[in-house]
């Protein structure tokens, strides 16, 4: 790419280039900022359509099995904790609000505000994952796995912190140490850019542990009251297969969203956004709203069955 841009500027096509008064962030193949913005906007909408269709297979499986085995779904949903699910829903809704505020700030060219709002959005995403980790690992402790590994054992859940939860927290813990260390290193350099970026990343990962702490606190408060069924349906594992597939795929999208948001955060710190150039914030925002929206469907479908 650099080579081509070299040619681009070496006078061969100089006249061609100057004719369009290209801004700093307008790619060479677009005629104007509007054309670039329109292309990006349409691209992200089409991409969101593919995302919806990507999830559609799982929604189809859900509809089919719920239609054929409603009793499994009614019984299985008792294993899901409505309060944690509702809490996560509120967290994601709030993150959508801050994302919308970030988009507005980017349109006004207020890069500092964009950075703050995007950071809050990322922290919310991490909290969501933390709570989800508590929910998942709690189920694994009780032997609630996908269909073939499903081995429910109610007596297993009450011994301190779950081993699975510790395992799940290794990567976030390592990331926290890593980002924190880089932020400390950034303290020594001038300018504060690195400090702000890596510090933000560290705060973002901290969100995961806030989520885990909150989730565990709630679990402790509710006193480990568990649904104790008299007799489990022999195919109840299919519900959890679908549950893990849907929420797992959604969690991957949350992680993808965090990476995209980190990129926006970086560019906000570098003051890239201007009233005539804010497309990436807008587009990542749209993606984030979709991730949020999918959860809005998943929550009632999985947690609120009656």
């Amino acid at each position: 790419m650099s080579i081509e841009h070299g040619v681009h500027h070496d006078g061969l096509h100089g006249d061609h280039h100057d004719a369009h008064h290209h801004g700093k962030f307008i790619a060479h193949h677009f005629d104007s900022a509007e054309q670039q913005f329109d292309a990006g906007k349409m691209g992200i909408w089409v991409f969101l359509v593919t995302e919806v269709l990507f999830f559609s297979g799982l929604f189809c499986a859900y509809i089919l099995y719920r239609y054929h085995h409603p009793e499994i779904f009614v019984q299985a949903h008792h294993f899901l904790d409505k309060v944690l699910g509702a809490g996560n829903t509120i967290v994601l809704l709030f993150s959508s609000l801050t994302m919308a505020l970030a988009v507005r700030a980017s349109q006004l060219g207020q890069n500092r505000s964009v950075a703050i709002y995007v950071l809050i959005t990322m922290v919310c995403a991490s909290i969501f994952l933390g709570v989800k980790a508590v929910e998942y690992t709690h189920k694994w402790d009780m032997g609630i796995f996908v269909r073939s590994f499903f081995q429910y054992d109610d007596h297993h859940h009450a011994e301190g912190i779950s081993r699975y939860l510790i395992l799940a927290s290794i990567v976030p813990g390592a990331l926290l140490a890593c980002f924190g260390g880089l932020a400390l290193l950034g303290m020594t350099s001038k300018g504060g850019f690195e400090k702000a970026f890596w510090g933000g990343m560290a705060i973002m990962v901290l969100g995961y542990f806030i989520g885990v702490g909150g989730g565990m606190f709630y679990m402790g408060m509710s006193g480990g009251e568990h649904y104790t069924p008299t007799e489990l349906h022999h195919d109840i594992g299919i519900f959890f297969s679908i549950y893990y597939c849907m929420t797992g795929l959604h969690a991957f999208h949350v992680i993808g969203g965090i990476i995209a948001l980190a990129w926006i955060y970086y560019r906000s710190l570098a003051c890239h956004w201007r009233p005539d150039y804010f497309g990436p914030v807008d587009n990542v925002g749209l993606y984030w709203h979709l991730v949020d929206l999918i959860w809005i469907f998943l929550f009632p479908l999985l947690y609120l069955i009656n």
Partner: protein
Amino acid sequence: MSNPSLAQQYFGHAAQHNYLNVSKGWKSWAFTLDHKRIGVMYLIGVTFALLLAGVFALLLRAELFTPNKMFLSEAQYNQMFTLHGAIMVFAFIIPSIPAALGNFVLPMMLGAKDVAFPRLNLMSFYLWVIGTIFLVIAMITNSLDTGWTFYTPYSIRTSTGVVAATFGAFVLGFSSIFTGINFLVTVHTMRAPGMGWFQMPLFIWGLYATAIIQVLATPVLGITLLMLIAERLLHIGIFDPKYGGDPVLFQHFFWFYSHPAVYIMILPGMGVISELISVYSRKKIFGYSFIAFSSVAIAILGFLVWGHHMFTSGQSELVTLIFSAITFTVAIPSAVKVFNWLSTMYKGCIALVTPMLFAMSFIFLFGIGGLTGLFLATLRTDIHLHDTYFVVAHFHYVMVGGTLTALFGGLFHWWPKMFGRMYNELCGKITCLLVFVGFNVTFFPQFVMGSRGMPRRYARYDIEFEAFHQWSTIGAMILGVGVVIGFATLVYAAFRGPRCAGNPFGAATLEWQSSSPPSFHNFDHKVEFTSPYDFSTQVYDEELDSYVHRNFTAPAKPAVPVQPQSI
């Protein structure tokens, strides 16, 4: 080109500074964002996939020369046809015309400098590479014997490399989705000033309809393959009857993608043919809007017919009837295209050059492939023909007779544009003849033996089918020789062929306003929009040995076309 300075005036200075020599070194190709270079890399890649899968096909046909074992065991035979199908479908046919030819031609036809998202375009290519590598890894390490359809529950039980292969197909799916997104957005936002939707070349309409399918159908394949991988690794019980799952659900999901994917394979080919027929008949395309809308109609109807692959799967009778009826309606837009092509040729000034010969054989072969589809859409006859060689012959007539023929036609047509050099006309014609004859000798006997009950996917067969199989094998060898000669001709032309000017065929679409090969930015001057099928705008200039826009030359030039040279 006899007069360089004049050529420079019209086509720009790019004959000397073109996209091929603008920068050097492998990095300038590996990290290029130029749609033309990505198109060329795609072309090399899909050609490799075609040859690999083609070798498998020839091995299969060689084994079938006698009813008994020659050199492949039954298990090896199963692996061979699976790899032939999987690599042909996922790594060759689906990306062939859109990603290779389309990438090169689409932005230029629109008068744009590049596709809307060049980075996504490069990423799409590398996803193609990764996906193909996974397919090859599956092939080398553990092989694969499920058929390209990966039907459950067998694909859950078999010991072969289903996970690597399905992951490869999953990644290839994303490559396809990204190409689709890019093309949709490029067509919407980057048309040349003055080019409305109904002034677009029909190849663009074909690619646009293809992109719609790529974007709407491929994600469903993606999630289906992920669920299959999860089923295999974790036994989630969605497709596996042993754990309460439904294997027919997999078939529904799979064909919800893979039937529309059939149109991903054929629609771009139809677009190419629309261009070729019009250019080499030197006549305005007949029924432009009918051809354009029939592409979109095929794309939409393609989503509603997947159940016709499952007539014998035990789905309800009512559903079967509905799918059968909708399948028949697909014949209407397909026929609209064929009749419009024939009407375009009627009273045209037809030049029987290589691309036109390919276009004409496309119409013939697609006609047979399309009409035999109606036999299979009819419920009664399908019960008899299901899973026989009749089906094999039918879809090969569409995919090879259709898509491969169109790809060759398109390559010969745009080759001078891509590399600035002319191919050898005689070799081109020999290619076309061998492909046409070889193809028919291969697959026509398969219709006959299929209707007499020869099942597909069998390594051994009854002695009564021996003669058909032997004809088929001989035809396959002829076809293989034809394909190799074709690529040899093209490769030779790209390096050693005589240089040619910007517009040697007198085509009116915008890509011919650039030099051959085009400059890095495609056009060095402002693109002058002309109607894509108004050939009166293109006049032959002897000094340039090329067609130019009539406004460019002195008014006394002859408007009567000089036929493209032929041997």
